[in-house]
């Protein structure tokens, strides 16, 4: 119990004094995971719509693959992304191993299937008549997609929340492709692991509380966006 109390005090101290190292790590975490989530949305939402609306052979196999991808273990992603990004790997010419960009790549691989999977579910749930009706009313292909996304807003924002949650909390991939380098690729999760192995438990707890606060703040903002202007369905 003493350790927990020390940790809470440490967290308050880190936040109150605006400890520069903690702030830097926190902003890097936000930037990296935020960007990875953004890219995942750009890839995952269109992919999800495509999978939900189109009909082609092998579609179900693809959807099941996406759904499996929702549970990709971060360490597996970390290993594979490392193999590609190593100097002498196929993408070694990019020179991004052990940089924040490498973490963004790995986290995008983790989050994109999550976003795509939720999008497939959300769009599939819409009344099929709606597509028919919108098309009949003369909606162009793009207008149709846009309207469907708007209809599935709740699910798609849930997809964003889940995607961000998956990447902000992972440590395996970040360690492997980032290297936990002070001032460069140390994020809140890898810092927590390192402080534990250094035996600095109170600092580790402090950092973990900062991480929880960050995750909560982002999720809260997204939830506000999700629920904005939402009225009971029947009154619409």
């Amino acid at each position, binding site marked *: 119990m003493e350790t927990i109390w020390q940790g809470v005090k440490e967290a308050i101290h880190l936040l109150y004094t605006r400890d520069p190292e903690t702030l830097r790590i926190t902003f890097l975490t936000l930037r990296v995971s935020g960007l990875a989530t953004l890219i995942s949305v750009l890839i995952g939402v269109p992919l999800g719509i495509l999978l939900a609306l189109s009909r082609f052979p092998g579609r179900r196999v693809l959807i099941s693959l996406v759904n499996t991808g929702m549970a990709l273990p971060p360490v597996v992603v970390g290993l594979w992304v490392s193999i590609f990004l190593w*100097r002498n790997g196929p993408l070694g010419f990019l020179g*991004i191993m052990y940089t924040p960009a490498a973490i963004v790549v790995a986290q995008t691989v983790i989050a994109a299937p999550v976003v795509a999977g939720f999008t497939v579910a959300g769009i599939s749930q819409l009344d099929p008549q709606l597509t028919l009706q919108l098309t009949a009313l003369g909606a162009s292909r793009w207008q149709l997609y846009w309207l469907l996304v708007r209809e599935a807003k709740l699910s798609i924002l849930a997809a964003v929340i889940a995607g961000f949650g998956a990447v902000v909390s992972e440590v395996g991939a970040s360690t492997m492709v980032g290297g936990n380098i002070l001032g460069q690729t140390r994020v809140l999760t890898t810092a927590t692991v390192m402080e534990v192995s*250094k035996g600095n438990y109170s600092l580790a707890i402090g950092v973990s509380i900062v991480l929880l606060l960050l995750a909560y703040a982002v999720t809260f903002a997204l939830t506000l966006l999700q629920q904005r202007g939402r009225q009971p369905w029947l009154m619409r």
Partner: protein
Amino acid sequence: MHFRSLAAIALALVMTVGCTAKETKPDATTPLANPDVILATTTSTQDSGLLDVLIPLFQKDTGYKIKPIAVGTGAALAMGEKGEADVLLVHAPADEKKLVDSGAAIERRLVAHNDYIVVGPKEDPAGVKGTKTAAEAMKKIADAKVIFISRGDDSGTHKKELSLWKTAGVKNEGQWYQQTGQGMGQTLNVANEKLGYTLTDRATFLSLQKNLSLEMLLEGDAPLLNIYHVMLVNPAKFRKVNAEGAKAFHAFLLSQEGQEAIGQFGVEKYGKPLFFPDGGKTEEQLTATK
């Protein structure tokens, strides 16, 4: 195709981060062609806090940016073997020599030493306290079948531990022999929780001691010497290696400034040094004086 353009945007974003990450403040006045130096090293240099002292000192002097990747020595050597690192700071002499012989690493120099110690629970159920040699201690632990927590990660410490079992002539098998596959810090934590014995480098043990109820039970036997070497990954073999940066860090570790920093590290906090600088010495000289 909108999907393709989105993918292009995504790729562009990734590139932007990559570039901005590289552009951030090289702290020297003269810009370097390639400031990033990958240092593959052992967990003990990170967990003990030594790197937190050496790296800023070096960076301030030269403007290079060290990227320390703290893994077990086995993994660090593997990175060197594949040309994925520029400079290695490791502690497994026999395997280091193999790497030099293979031509993957050059300029292998002694940097510092400290020693391994056997730690275990206060009650010392195997009766390690009072033994004179490491081999004797390992045999007692194996005979008593009390829990021994091994690194099990092909690190320098793990390699040393395996050689000690061999010298002792006992088999490290059974319910009592458990492997964590993790760094020294975590392994000490596990040994602490499970009331087990383990082999650790002195530096990591001292820096974690405040959280541990484990006690030092054996020290000072000659085979327990823990020697750290620095090596350059051979740029003639791997053309992507940052040879200049690696050489600069190599020279810094062996310089007077670097050696003094190593010798001073820990004195303030623990009242004694955690590493003993050995720049310029050979391994033979070191083992002869022990």
